[in-house]
């Protein structure tokens, strides 16, 4: 599994404000295009891993949308985040099929293993845990996705094993 390159910049974030220059190309490509606000926000999140406040202000200056309009749109959609995320995004599916196959137990095991709640990031910035409505892999329920790789037919033990193997690869302590 390739680590999520899109979150590389989230590491730098802690040292200071993220550099808005990283989305210059994106803004230029979208200039004057109707209905481009959501793709701009998606592109921004791809670059930084989240939507940094100072970058949203730059988007506002360049597109003419007010900051409140941009925030209104960004906060409406569950895809957008306003805080940095870990290198690995762990998304636990809570779709119907997963729910009836006890997705809650998977979620609980992951929370215990990572020692974080839903929506939070581990202290070492390695993992962010998120519950999602449905990943569409229902026949393999219960399912979780790490980065863009889906893991199916999970048991709580198997989910923990997968997390530990990533930790080991990343050289972290168990």
């Amino acid at each position: 599994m390739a680590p999520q390159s899109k979150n590389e910049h989230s590491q730098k974030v802690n040292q200071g404000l993220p550099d808005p220059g990283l989305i210059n190309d994106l803004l230029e490509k979208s200039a004057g295009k109707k209905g481009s606000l959501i793709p701009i926000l998606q592109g921004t999140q791809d670059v930084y891993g989240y939507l940094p406040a100072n970058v949203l202000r730059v988007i506002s200056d360049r597109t003419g949308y007010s900051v409140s309009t941009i925030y209104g749109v960004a906060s409406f959609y569950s895809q957008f985040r306003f805080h940095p995320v870990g290198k690995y995004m762990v998304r636990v599916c809570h779709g119907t099929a997963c729910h009836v196959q006890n997705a809650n137990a998977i979620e609980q095991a992951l929370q215990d293993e990572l020692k974080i709640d839903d929506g939070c990031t581990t202290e070492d910035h390695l993992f962010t845990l998120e519950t999602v409505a449905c990943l569409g892999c229902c026949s393999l329920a219960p399912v979780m996705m790490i980065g863009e790789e889906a893991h199916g037919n999970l048991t709580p033990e198997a989910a923990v094993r997968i997390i530990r193997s990533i930790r080991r690869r990343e050289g972290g302590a168990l």
Partner: protein
Amino acid sequence: MTPKKIILGMGSCGLAAGASKIWDRLNALRQSGTIDCNISATGCIGMCYMEPLLEVVDEKGSVIYGKVDETRLDEIIESHILKGEILAHYVVKSTFMPASEDSFFTSQKRIVLRNCGQIDPENIDEYIQRGGYEALKHIARENVPPDSIIDEVIASGMRGRGGGGFPSGMKWRITRNSDSPLKYLVCNADEGDPGAFMDRSIIESDPHSVIEGMIIAAYAIGASVGVIYCRAEYPLAVKRLKGAIAQAGERGFLGCDIVGINNFCFSLEVKEGAGAFVCGEETALIASVEGRRGMPRRKPPFPSESGLWDGPTSINNVETFTNVPWIILNGSKAFSSIGTSGSKGTKVFALTGKVRRGGLAEVPMGITINEIINGPGGGIREGHKFKAVQLGGPSGGCLPASLGDVAIDYESLTSTGAIMGSGGMVVMDETTCMVDVARFFLDFTCHESCGKCTFCRLGTKRMLEILERICEGNGSEGDIELLEDLAHEIISSSLCGLGQTAPNPVLTTIRYFRDEYEAHIKEKRCPTGVCTKLLTYSILPDRCTGCTICARECPVSAISGEKKKTHFIDVNLCTRCGTCFIKCPFKAIERK
């Protein structure tokens, strides 16, 4: 006998089951010279429960092996690929011999899924070889006028497959009749229902069928701009769509003067959704494509008259578009000969939950729920009993096993309180608590309500609170009636489909499983043991050996007892976490 070709299932389901490892290993083996044959990828054939699937094609025909992990792959290579000896016990489907999963396909009729699992979705030539873009070329060759295409689709009787069931051709006619010079065509691939994955599989496995259907529709209604609104949670589907659009453009199926039809210009782009279930509603989807908050607006005007950028816009579902090329090539009569008087053609269902075979099945309209569950679904998992089936996701309803003989058609399903929906079919057995299922769906719709209509925004929240307290043992007399009252208010006072259907899971579970609600409320008991707050744990004296494990493991020290003597659980301290139940090596903890 050297096999000509090895094909690996690389849809999301295959990948989730580990297909990428098999893919890497196959390629490594070819590079090292161990095997000498073509290796290619395909999408999802529907047998998701058997993934990863590996197909071996040689002069005799094809065999598909199921559940191919690395060990099994080595066996297949050793025996079939190198020696030509088929490993019959692993074969799930074959073109020339009986196989273990043949019954998965017997009651199916594949129109929409005609190419799924048969072609490499990233290779336009494989689509063309199977008759792809032939419908479009036929239209150009025979000079078929747009109105005749609309007539043909209306005659076929096809109704929208996204859930609404509005006749697709009628939508097209309204858009066509508009005078506006700029018309839009939108494909709704924002499959947000938890428990549904038909559209994802179709796009991942056969993106060109959707694109061809859209091009034909664009020609019929006179649209020049097309948008596919696809969930961002489906990265593989988005990638394959973009790739397929680029290929179609290179071959002249998109752009200007398409397939030689003068002045027929059509461009197509993919818009990724940003995670809002309400955007499955047409007007909310349009707001989202325009870059705004995805909130529905009042209708009329309907999008067919005034939609995207205020232009006439026809919005159809993925499955609907996929049917179109088939109807053009085979004729409306062939399509309308399948199904019932009011519901024509086939419907793809995503079969999941407690069935033996979870996957995608396409069946003719009119067959019964039982026929799907026992046919393609292979029946309920061993040792369990069919209790209920949930159709149509958060907008649909739960039907009890006693209604298993209800036919799959729009009217029959609506009369039960459920809906056809987009095709999610979650099967439940006796271990599923119906009150919990209702709470689960309300939790979903409450979270996904856009907030515009008060009754949807606050009503779903109040309903959820009532359901939560019932599940926690704090339900009181009158709660069921209160739920019903709120449900009817929400249905009648919400602007869009989300609110109008949100109470359906609650209403149907009350209608068919009222006794379960009453057990929770009056007896403070969850008959299935799912609602943990309602469980009581006790120790069976004749089994307890006094090993003290439970007492040591209990996180709240609710268990006491001397070594080698029977232990006791203090029900007042017990938080019902279930740790003792799991840890006891002698099965001495009873859970009721």
